[in-house]
């Protein structure tokens, strides 16, 4: 079964105005999603922009990025199993991240 990588882009300030009750509901929804049968694993990333290293003509140079222009950061990633891109997208549509205004980037993992 092909594997897909879901990259969850986040704008953490979005949650600033939510009540504790709403925050709990959101947390429960995110947690429930990781209990789904097609879910393989995931990791949370630290809430910062990270670094991007450019070759820079043989003199590699690292910069903040890659989203320094926006408030969105790559918040974490999941791997799921799906038969095709269509199915992977279909499964991702149920992720609460979209309900809360986030963005999910879906990429297929290359199978040898």
């Amino acid at each position, binding site marked *: 079964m092909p594997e897909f990588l879901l990259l969850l882009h*986040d704008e*953490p300030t979005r*949650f*600033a*105005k*939510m*009540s*504790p*009750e*709403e*925050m*709990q*509901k*959101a*947390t*429960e*929804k*995110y*947690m*429930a*999603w*990781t*209990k789904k049968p097609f879910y393989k694993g*995931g*990791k*949370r990333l630290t*809430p910062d922009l990270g670094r991007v290293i450019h070759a820079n003509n043989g003199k590699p140079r690292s910069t903040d990025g890659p989203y320094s222009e926006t408030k969105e950061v790559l*918040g*974490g990633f*999941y791997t799921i199993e799906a038969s095709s891109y269509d199915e992977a997208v279909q499964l991702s549509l*149920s992720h*609460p991240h979209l309900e809360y205004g986030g963005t999910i980037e879906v990429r297929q993992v290359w199978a040898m």
Partner: protein
Amino acid sequence: MSALAETGLLLDHLFRRQAGRIVAHLTRLLGPAQLDLAEESVQEAMVRALQTWPTQGVPENAEGWLFRVAHNAAIDAVRRNRALRDKTDAIVADLCRSASIPPGDPSIERRLRDDELRMIFLCCHPDIPRDSSVALSLKTVGGFSVREIARAFLADDTAIAQRLVRTKRQIRESGMTLDAPSAAEMQRRLDAALDVIYFIFNEGYTAHEGDELIRRDLCQEALRLGRLIAASSLAQPRVHALVALMALQAARSEARVDTSGNLVLLEEQDRSRWDQQLISLGFHHFDRSMSGEDVSQYHVEAAIAATHARAAADGSIDWPLILNLYGQLMELNPSPVVRLNRAVAVAKLEGPAAALDAIEPLEADPKLRDYYLLLAVRGHLLLQLNRLTEAAHCFRAALGCRCSEPERRFLRRKLEECRVG
């Protein structure tokens, strides 16, 4: 996603409960002037939970985790806050000490309860206007969002947000503290707090249009705050009376509307739908309210609610006792609403004509001209007297007032009766 998967993963209201007490605790350490900072720190802890728990799993001690992460967020914020300059080190040291106490320790539990109580008394300070106290209590102690408070009071978000900003400014500028007031001042503070709590309860209990779930939350929160005070050393008989009153009324709330969403009058309610747990809680506090000489408005109202709760069926309601209690209540609080309720007891004992006489003075009150309940009661009495045209006029006028959908259906049904008769 199934409903089952969405719930049951975390303890009910875990975030709301913890938010209230952690904000109270941080505010105690930071001072009431830094209430915003305390709230933001708790918010940040919850965002962290949202971001980490789904992939890393829920920590074994979720409460302790939120407590610690909120402290760390506060420490970072205090270090960044230049306005605190010379106090920074001392506050950071306090926060670090507090963060290191193992959660669940009985001493910290006691401390947190105490902080929460002090926070209630700060929010309900008699110098703060009641509407502001209500909003601030719900926000900081109750863990309600601005949007939720606005929904509960049919106000718009901006108005509530501005009210909160003004109230916090008042607290800052008048230098209010979380210190325990003197014994004499305590009476005044306690009365103000009970008043705010009862107001929150009534707002949730009174059926007007608005979000059903939020209104139930208001009742629960008011009951929780009342019980918190009742369990403390500040518990006086009238605190127990208020808790009894709220519990006995809340016990009936489910039975007020039937399965098709129609309003059911008290006498016609299916008593098996009354919440027995709340009834026994109510009677427990009612008994405790009887120690001492204190007879407050809450005592009398609790006695009325208890009389209804004791009645096994419609015929056995002790109307003479209820009428007598309303008489006492009139002396303590001669409000139009009390007079109107008393008229219902008068109708039971002396008939509809006497009850009509009893409410006559109310009709001259311009504030009550658009009060649907007065019109509904009057219509009901006229209907009993077979004065159908006048009754129909009342129900039609009542339908033009602010009331909930089940109430509207009830009034339409009554209006129908006027035609049939």
